[in-house]
């Protein structure tokens, strides 16, 4: 399964410029994403409103309506991409991703269960909707632990990881379908909207929470690059360079679950970002772990922001689920990688 070209180390002398370009692109997209909507705001008006100048109306639109959504999309994209990057390194498998490993479907089970358990006859929630992310996180962690437990019992390699992940994801999505069918239609549509992945209900509190979770993970992420580079070697060689391979792999997987759960809890199943962002990043900046992580986070944020802009514009005034847009772009790209990888083995 492991891709021979995955480990080739081409020199990417220009990588700092790539990172700068990505950052600039992200900034431009943020301005655009704030501007796009039922009333179009030009970038200069957006900039003015952001620094507290400009018209009062613009300030309200930008600061209470659009900015939280844009920031949430960028943060979620960064989290998912980082999680994917860590997973792909830990499993040495460029095809691993949070959604293949049952984490996203697990979170979905948590959310759907939450919606059904805590609603009364009148279809009103009996507890605050702000607990929903907690339910999602619980579901993600539970299902990730099931996958982890099965792999640990099995002792198999990265390939078995995907097999178990897909199996557990299938179980989780069967449970979700079941709960949706059993519940009232109103709840079903609410659950389906969440499942499709969307950032349209962003609140500042969500933005702060994810930002906090992301910042919490930064010190650990900053410590990881050296070990991640060692992990590119095979297990035995990595061990002789002084790396505790098994425990490092466990740390990477835990971080991946943590980051995925943080993002998915708030934005739902935004698919394929965790898979494709690291892949694109590798093409742009190469393998060295430090820039790989940094680049992945930027690319992930860019992808989700761009997808959200498309989701808002494509069928305006209707809004598509952001996750549907990333899947439409991501799935064909992933199939392309899959076919190319298989052919390169022949």
């Amino acid at each position, binding site marked *: *399964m492991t891709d021979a070209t995955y480990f080739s180390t081409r020199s990417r002398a220009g990588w700092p410029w790539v990172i700068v370009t990505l950052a600039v692109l992200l900034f431009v997209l943020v301005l655009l994403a704030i501007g796009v909507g039922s009333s179009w705001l030009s970038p200069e008006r957006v900039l003015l409103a952001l620094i507290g100048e400009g018209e009062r109306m613009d300030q309200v639109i930008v600061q209470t309506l659009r900015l939280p959504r844009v920031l949430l999309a960028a943060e979620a994209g960064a989290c998912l991409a980082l999680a994917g990057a860590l997973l792909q390194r830990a499993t040495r498998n460029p*095809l691993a991703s949070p*959604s*293949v490993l049952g984490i996203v479907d697990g979170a979905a089970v948590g959310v759907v269960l939450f919606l059904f358990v805590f609603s009364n006859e009148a279809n009103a929630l009996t507890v605050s909707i702000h607990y929903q992310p907690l339910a999602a996180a619980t579901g993600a962690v539970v299902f990730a632990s099931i996958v982890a437990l*099965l792999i640990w*019992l*099995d002792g198999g390699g990265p*390939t078995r990881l*995907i*097999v*178990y992940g*897909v*199996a557990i*994801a*299938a*179980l989780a999505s*069967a*449970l979700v*379908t*079941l709960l*949706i*069918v*059993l519940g009232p*239609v109103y709840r*079903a*549509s609410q659950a*389906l909207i969440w499942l*499709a992945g969307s950032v349209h209900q962003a609140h500042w509190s969500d933005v702060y929470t994810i930002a906090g979770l992301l910042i919490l993970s930064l010190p650990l992420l900053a410590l990881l690059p050296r070990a991640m580079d060692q992990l590119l070697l095979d297990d035995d060689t990595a061990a002789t360079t002084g790396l505790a391979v098994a425990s490092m792999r466990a740390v990477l997987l835990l971080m991946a679950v943590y980051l995925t759960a943080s993002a998915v809890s708030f934005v739902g199943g935004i*698919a*394929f970002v965790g898979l494709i962002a690291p892949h694109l990043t590798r093409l742009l900046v190469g393998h060295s772990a430090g820039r790989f992580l940094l680049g992945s986070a930027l690319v992930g944020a860019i992808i989700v922001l761009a997808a959200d802009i498309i989701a808002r514009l494509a*069928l305006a005034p*209707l*809004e*598509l*689920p952001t*996750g*549907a*847009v990333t*899947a*439409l772009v991501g*799935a*064909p790209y*992933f*199939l392309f990688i*899959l*076919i190319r*990888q*298989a*052919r390169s*083995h*022949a």
Partner: protein
Amino acid sequence: MMAARSSPTHDWRVIAGMMLCLIAAAAASLHLGLRHYAPWQVIDALFNDSQSTEGLIIRTLRLPRTVNALVVGAALAVSGLLMQSVTRNPLAAPGVLGVNAGAALAVVLGLSLFGIVSLTALAGLAAAGALAATTLVFGITLSAGRSFSPVHVLLAGVTVAALLASFTQIVLVTDESTMESLLFWLSGGFADRPLRLLAIGGPAIAVAFIAVLPLARALDVLMTDDDSAQSLGVPVLRIRLAALGLAAVLAGISVSIAGPVVFIGLIAPHIARHLVAPAHAVLIPAAALVGAMLAILADILARYLVAPGEAPVGAVLALIGVPVLIILLRSRRMVLQRR
């Protein structure tokens, strides 16, 4: 795999035993439910064409759902077996490889774009969608050449399913009224399905089933690896295409009769492998019998779980299927290839 215990006579004895169990289960399915009937009432209803209430219930409700379960269960199991054998993948199954996602997308498109409401027309659409999705997955598999590993097939299936699901979501966003019809269709089940579907689908499934049997020897050889199979004179690509085509047809017809019924295609082949020798000549009938039995038992359970209501068969199958799948995954027998 269990070679010491299974001899041909042993296998056929097991199959005969399973057939008896299946007949018993089908008979039980006619008797049990919200109202229980005595054997003489059932016989009277079946053979004497009585116009009494119980006669009508048994003939028009119990009998159709029993036959539906039997046919669909068997078809899904054989479809799953073919997919698992051809892709050498213990997790291949109609549901995992995008069949249900394709059918769901076709149904949603039919409901929303063309305003189709007749269940028969929707069933046709579902079959077409299922076929198209499977063709897409296997087209990708084949286009990538011979080094496509089982995990690749799995990932291709999951990805295509995700792609189709996102199209479904987009249609649902643009037309919320289709949601309710979709939910009805999503639940899957054997009761209250138009008999016309069975009249068309049943014979088609029978034909596909008979067409599968001659492939048994070639499938056995294919289980080793492509090169050995080729050198033994098996036309690998042609057999693979034929088997996958039949698997897709079986799954497509099943989904059009009963909606998405999960887990049977995944689990029944594995149970069959535990019961008989790993030779397709006995595996195919064994899997069909196990699938039919699972479907009938799940259907009977569905009548009791939330009585007087009726639980979705999918729910019951998930309840049975989840633990079984985990046990299967844990046991090393899940590995298909003899190493």
